[in-house]
């Protein structure tokens, strides 16, 4: 299946091939679509790889231009004695975004493709979505298809908010796949049961007016989408491009939040993540333990349960002030604060403390 990309000579041939493949019932790997936010050109990838010695030792890349900003990219990763090589299609026809398409197996996606682009951060950033953003995106998709959307299953990571109760109740945490249609109800039930919930992926289908399945697809919180059944052209137009637009809007929302001095006054543009529960010391300890993996973190108050810290993104150099009090987390971008760094930090926080609602706050 990995050599299917060789058949593509342009956009139309790709579209026709995938249309035919995914509208017939049969056994085949789903089409994986990874949306990346970047201002780079695909042609720059070998140069960047060459600049980074460590990365160039593990990865090899070969690019073939197919025209109209469509590229066939051969990506190889050496892992000890093992080599994994597959081909992907990158659609760079939209400003500030790359759409990576492949039918390769999940192992390649997780260990080669995603890891390679993660290493290119901050030049290449993922499209991060929390549960409420996923819901918003799915609503838009549903409207585009003019059909009824039904989530078939969803995967969540859950952790009990009060670990002290573990001696009384059996420990239940970790990833859980729930085959429920009412995602909202299930999440509310889990929150009421004292869990922190992180929605990792959602599987859904869109059913048309004549009860025919129009789309069977999958969405993850890191911008990886899968087409299992349905017209590729419709999926691309109604799902991928809508997600891309949403991503560009989010990037704009996180942009220009750096601390600036205007007319002698310091201007800050903080963001807040609000939760339906109040944080306790255990959450703050967990947060401290986990956040230090990706950020240089200096903690001024680690408990009380008031938390105040300064964070610096190791890869990007952006720095932030983070305060946690009651049921909200305030993130104040300070130096540099690129949109991709703000976005990544908000996602990392939510992956540790559960999905919340992101809001813009006005400083006095």
């Amino acid at each position, binding site marked *: 299946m990995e050599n299917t990309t060789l058949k593509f000579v342009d956009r139309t041939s790709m579209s026709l091939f995938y249309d035919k493949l995914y509208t017939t019932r049969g056994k085949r790997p789903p089409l994986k679509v990874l949306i990346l936010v970047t201002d780079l050109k695909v042609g720059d990838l070998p140069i960047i790889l060459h600049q980074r010695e460590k990365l160039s030792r593990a990865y090899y890349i070969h690019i073939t231009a197919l025209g109209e900003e469509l590229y066939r990219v051969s990506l190889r990763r050496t892992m000890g004695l093992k080599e994994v090589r597959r081909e992907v299609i990158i659609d760079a026809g939209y400003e500030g975004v790359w759409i990576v398409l492949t039918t390769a197996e999940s192992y390649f996606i997780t260990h080669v493709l995603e890891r390679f682009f993660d290493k290119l951060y901050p*030049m290449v950033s993922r499209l991060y979505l929390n549960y409420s953003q996923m819901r918003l995106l799915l609503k838009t998709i549903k409207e585009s298809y003019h059909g009824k959307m039904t989530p078939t299953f969803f995967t969540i990571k859950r952790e009990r908010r009060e670990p002290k109760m573990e001696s009384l109740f059996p420990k239940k945490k970790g990833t859980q796949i729930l085959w429920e249609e009412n995602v909202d109800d299930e999440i509310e039930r889990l929150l009421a049961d004292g869990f922190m919930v992180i929605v990792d992926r959602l599987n859904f289908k869109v059913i048309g007016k004549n009860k025919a399945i129009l789309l069977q697809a999958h969405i993850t919180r890191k911008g990886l989408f899968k087409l299992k059944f349905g017209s590729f052209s419709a999926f691309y137009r109604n799902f991928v491009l809508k997600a891309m637009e949403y991503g560009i809007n989010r990037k704009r929302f996180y942009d220009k939040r750096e601390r600036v001095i205007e007319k002698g006054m*310091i201007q*800050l543009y903080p963001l807040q993540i609000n939760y339906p529960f*109040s944080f306790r010391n255990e959450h703050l300890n967990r947060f401290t333990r986990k956040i230090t993996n990706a950020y240089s973190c*200096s903690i001024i108050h680690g408990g009380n349960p008031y938390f105040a810290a300064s964070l610096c993104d190791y890869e990007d150099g952006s720095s932030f002030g983070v305060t946690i009090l009651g049921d909200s987390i305030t993130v104040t971008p300070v130096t540099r604060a690129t949109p991709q760094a703000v976005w990544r930090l908000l996602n990392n926080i939510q992956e540790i403390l559960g999905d919340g609602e992101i809001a813009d706050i006005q400083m006095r």
Partner: protein
Amino acid sequence: MISLLTLQQDCIRGFRRYADTVAVLSAVYYVLKKAPRVADYIGIETKLKNRYGNDITPDLVALCESRTKGLIFEFKWSLPLLEKLLQKEIREIKKYAVPCSKWKNSTGKVDYHDLVFVCHIEDVQRTLSVVSMVAKETGFDFLTSDGFAIWTWAISAVRGGERKEHLIITNAYGKTRNTAIENMINQPTGLILPEEVLTYLRSSFTFIRQKPPIPYTIIALIHHVFSQFQDPTRGRAVYEITTDMIYDKAKIFFAAWHEFDVKTIQIKRRWVTEALEAMSVLNIIRRRVEKPDTWLIPIPTLRTREPIQSALCKKLSKHQLKITKRPVRKGRPRTKPIRFKVSPKMKRIDEYFSR
């Protein structure tokens, strides 16, 4: 001998307390700025001349009642544990209590001024007992008269789901002659700062006039200054940077408290130099031997999986122990036997005496 753990804990405590003192100074500044009826002018590090002709630079200066009355604030993030040293510290504040000139008004003089000494809640009991002792000495009666106050501050705990405010400044001793300020500070709850204001202040101001502990400056440089030199395309790399380049970036980031006032730039060059030298001693950065004031700095600097202040304080404490520890040899003390070798050409000592 002090243990490594004690040194490390002291170091972390110093770091946190300095950060909080900055927040408190900026909080008082904010409160006065937002209440024009209380103060007509507020100045950070304004220079005054006292009666003895010495220049003094209090942390915060305010002018009230049409700039006829003065108010001086002195903030201490840490006070010595030794009573003698604390007494010395208290005696030193006399320089702020005597009449001063060069106030920011038309005459440069005020009818009188009050002095507010602000310290951490952990230091306040010791300070109060030392103040009562020093007040008995001649020339220190200002400590017991109106116009001298000690304020203290604490971060409030969250109770019953209330979460709007958390920094509380309270009066611990004495009072000022400013009724408006007294009304504010003597509320049953003390002076409360809203959380969002404190968030703003924490991200806006980083230093006070008092020299910060070295780890504090190092962390400020790592988080806010070195990261500005980082080129994302290079990944982790070693950058050759001069002290001037670092100081120039720091000046922009830790800008003056007042517009067009270069004297109040928060960070001092000597603090930057000292921090860079400490980092070089700890092998976090390297000094370029052939070029003066040039450093080889790996960015991102000090990658660690624990809070950076813990990692840094551990390194500093280890180094401190290393230099204070004397090499002690095990076993009984040995003396090297002295062996005299007398060559045939040497004269005997009694020959000298016989002359």
